[in-house]
Every structure is written in structure tokens, then in C-alpha cells.
């Protein structure tokens, strides 16, 4: 079956993609983004969480051209076209890494660790990367 039409079964579940890895040392971050884009074709209720080293994925100032990797940070800006607008970043993870709350490539909602834990507990499906 082709996924070109974005057929759905009508059941909408709450999907959370948890991003906890830094962007370039491993393939996790890029793979997560690809899976998110594919899932978008199924019209689910999708949220993205960035915590621990995952907060490094969204830095506006990243430029990996010098290490011969594709810069996939701009692709996060396409998520809006895919109706994925719920991006959450954990405040404590930013603080632990000395990162400000306003250096991201896309608009995000910064939430506390406790709020992040509550949000995780409220999901139907959690996919971790």
C-alpha cells in the first residue's frame, strides 16, 4: 500500500516521541525525525519531547557542514506543515547544560521536569530515541 494519500483508520492516539540523544554523535536524532514525519501521515495526536542531551538537537546556532553531515535542524521547521506543533523542552535539562531558553530553531514550550513526567504518563504510545 502506498502512504501517499495519508489514509487513516480513524483512531487517534496520543503519540509522544522522546528525544534524549545529542544530534550528531549517533543516528538517533535524525532517525527520530524521520519516524515523526512518517507518523504525521497517519493523523495522530503527536507531541515531541526534548530532554537530557536531546535538547542539543534544536540549537539554532548548529552548523555541521564542517563535519560533512547534513544539517537537519531546518527540517524541524517543516514540522508545522505536518501539523506537528507540540514541541516540549525540559527546563532542568537546559539548566544542566548551561543553555538559554531562546536559542531554538523552532518555537517550543519549555516545561519543568515534573510537567514532563506528567505529560509522559498521559500518552497512549511513547517512542524513545
Amino acid at each position, binding site marked *: 500500500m502506498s502512504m501517499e494519500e495519508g489514509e487513516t483508520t480513524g483512531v487517534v492516539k496520543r503519540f509522544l516521541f522522546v528525544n534524549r540523544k545529542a544530534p550528531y554523535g549517533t543516528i538517533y536524532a535524525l532517525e527520530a525525525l524521520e519516524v515523526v514525519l512518517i507518523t504525521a501521515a497517519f493523523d495522530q495526536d503527536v507531541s515531541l519531547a526534548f530532554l537530557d542531551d536531546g535538547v542539543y538537537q534544536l540549537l539554532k546556532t548548529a552548523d555541521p557542514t564542517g563535519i560533512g553531515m547534513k544539517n537537519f535542524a531546518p527540517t524541524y521547521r517543516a514540522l508545522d506543515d505536518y501539523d506537528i506543533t507540540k514541541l516540549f523542552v525540559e527546563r532542568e535539562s537546559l539548566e544542566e547544560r548551561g543553555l538559554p531558553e531562546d536559542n531554538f530553531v523552532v518555537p517550543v514550550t519549555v516545561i519543568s521536569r515534573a510537567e514532563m513526567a506528567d505529560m*509522559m504518563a498521559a500518552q497512549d504510545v511513547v517512542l524513545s530515541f
Partner: protein
Amino acid sequence: MLHTVNKSPLQSRTLEQCLAHVRPGGAVLLIEDAVYAATARTAAGAQIEKSVAQFPVYVLEPDLKARGIASKDVVKGVTAVDYAGFVKLVTEHDAVQAWL
């Protein structure tokens, strides 16, 4: 929610990052290299000892055995489960989060 952890606590901070996100009603299952965290008289073991007072902590027995950890060396309050017990835990919780 059932949280699974599979990394050694001496190799990565995944366990403590997981433990900081467990809510009431949640549980933690230690598998693969994370079973080392269940050993008594270790720093991670002390953390697990505090956790079992707040929520259930399970450890996958075949992974313990494979790594030569005796039952008597497992932190008190941690419940050992076999593969069937693993499956049961998954069905008992709304969702599973694998901390990689």
C-alpha cells in the same frame, strides 16, 4: 506507565534520568546492563533502595543470571521477574517507555 532501562548505571546516566520521571502509578523494570543497578552495596543500588519506597522496581532475572549476579546480592524490595513476568508488566500498564 512502565519504564524500562537497559544501560549500566556506571556507563550512562539513563537510570537516574529515568527515575526522575516516574509518576505515581508508574513502575521501573531493569533489563540488560541496567540490572547491575539492582546490586546491593553500590551507588546505584542505594538509589534503587530509595526508589522502591516510592514505586515498584523490577529486574529481569535471566539478565541477572547471565551476568552472574546472585539473588542475595539484589537490593531488598526489588522484584525479580522472568520473561512471562515482563510481558505481564507490559499488559498491566497503559504504556511503556524504553529509556535508551
